[in-house]
């Protein structure tokens, strides 16, 4: 079902593991996160961060099970198998949506079949809406949570020009919108902080809010990223750093405790 992600040269881990560790290090003790469907990479990242540098981090499994500590990560990240060890099972409309609207949660990660330079995503259709070439699952809570939650993280395991596009076929969830101060004008809090892909890490240029190359995974060049991205990538002057290497302990925890069955590799199928 899942193909094996590639080795990261010289890092003693595979690309899924580098992505998890990279995202994990973006989280802190003040992170209050939850997850939606098919969110293996961020779920691993939250669980790993809690085991390493952010013990106070809040994570609501499936947006339901607060402080869960699952024995394994199942095929569905909305599954009850993810809820073991929770100290609260919250009631969806009354508890979860109240907390999300009030930004009691502050962190949400999402991906899409398409993503544009401002971190807007499409998970609805490829092609025209009424007669789509590909009908995708739908935006789910993306349109909601991208408007409610201040710290948005994006990820993609398929960094290619079909995913990173000049123009979305449909905007299911908002990133920085049309860029610049668009979110602010709409009264929306925060915005996308970073995008972790299987090739690199993007941040967002503070003025234009366009994706900007922040680090390259080992063995990847700026030209590789440019060639794999459907829009013009902002590349800052000077040396582009290499994405930092995971510690041995991070890799061990991820493999042995956080995700022993390798659910994270499902995103590479």
């Amino acid at each position, binding site marked *: 079902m899942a193909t094996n992600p590639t080795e990261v040269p010289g890092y003693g881990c595979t690309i899924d593991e580098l992505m998890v560790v990279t995202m994990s290090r973006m989280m802190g003790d003040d992170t209050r996160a939850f997850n939606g469907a*098919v969110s293996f990479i961020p779920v691993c990242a939250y669980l790993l961060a809690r085991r390493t540098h952010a013990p106070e981090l809040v994570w609501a499994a499936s947006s339901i099970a607060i402080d869960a500590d699952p024995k394994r990560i199942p095929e569905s990240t909305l599954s009850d198998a993810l809820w073991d060890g929770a100290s609260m*099972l919250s*009631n*969806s*409309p009354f508890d979860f949506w109240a907390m999300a609207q009030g930004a009691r949660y502050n962190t949400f990660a999402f991906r899409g079949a398409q993503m544009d330079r401002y971190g807007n995503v499409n998970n609805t259709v490829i092609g025209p809406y009424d007669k789509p070439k590909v009908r995708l699952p739908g935006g*789910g*809570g993306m*349109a*909601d949570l991208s408007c409610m939650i201040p710290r948005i993280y994006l990820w993609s395991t398929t960094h290619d020009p079909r995913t990173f596009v000049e123009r979305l076929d449909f905007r299911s969830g908002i990133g920085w919108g049309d860029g610049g101060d668009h979110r602010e004008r709409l*009264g929306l809090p925060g915005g996308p902080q970073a995008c972790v892909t299987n090739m690199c890490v993007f941040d967002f240029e503070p003025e234009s809010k366009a994706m900007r190359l922040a680090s390259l995974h080992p063995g990847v060049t700026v030209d590789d990223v440019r060639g794999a991205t459907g829009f013009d990538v902002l590349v800052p002057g000077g040396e582009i750093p290499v994405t930092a290497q995971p510690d041995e302990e991070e890799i061990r925890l991820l493999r042995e405790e956080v995700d022993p069955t390798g659910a994270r590799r499902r995103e590479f199928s």
Partner: protein
Amino acid sequence: MDKRRSLVEAASLVEDGATVAIGGLSMNGAPMALVREIVRRRARDLTVVAIVAGMPVDWLVAGGCVSKVVSGLISFEGLGLAPHFRAAVQRGEVEVEEYSEHTLICRLQAAAYGLPFMPTKAGLGTDMISMHPDTTRHEQDPSTGEHYIACTPLPVDVALVHAHSADSQGNIRVDPKLIWMDNEIVNAATTTVASVEEVLPHRDFVAEPHRTTYPRFMVDAVAVAPYGAYPTANFPRYSYHAQFFADYVQATRDPSAWAEFWQTRVVGPAEQGDLLDANGGPNTLIDIAREA
């Protein structure tokens, strides 16, 4: 008033052309036994409201029951896309009116509460809003200038939910009270039909009244359906059946395999016990039992 009905009787409350809302969320708590009876009686022209769902919508589409899906997300998550739903939409046979989860919740709440709209920040700046400006209107508060989305009422004819238990009067327990968005569809619906794992004596409800989720006067029919959410989960009693999802997706790749799968493993079996028998019997029940 005795609200107990057979699954066939309960499912018959969903008339052709109705707007029917389906409880549960993704792989959890869908009223599959009721959905199966709707498919078996060949209902037609349904508008299906399902906030986040997979298998129930795919069964209804495969059965030719659906003209429109009003939804936030339809998939099998890590186990694949909903294949009949996807194909029917791509062929233009089923219309999708897509909303986000919260705008859909707000539309259901507006219907339930008798309000012209419910406001939310959800969807601002997305195509989810620009796509249906009549039902999700982008507005600005006259006093503060703040942007919001006014979500208009989405009335529902029948809500279908699966729960843990009921008494004969139609008091319903979802236990624990993890109700996803089921309350929203029950509140918005004219008629509510519930399948339950078991019927308990009324005195059990009186003994622990805080565990009751829906009161009798909001429930029109109760049908007993053990494992009535199968192949989705009924937390904490049983989990979803991953193998069923995998076999289902596999079968759709070959028309003849699909015809047999559909007949023998979905619509053919007569009762709940037969359905479980056709899908692995006791081994499946052991497989989906949750670890304590």
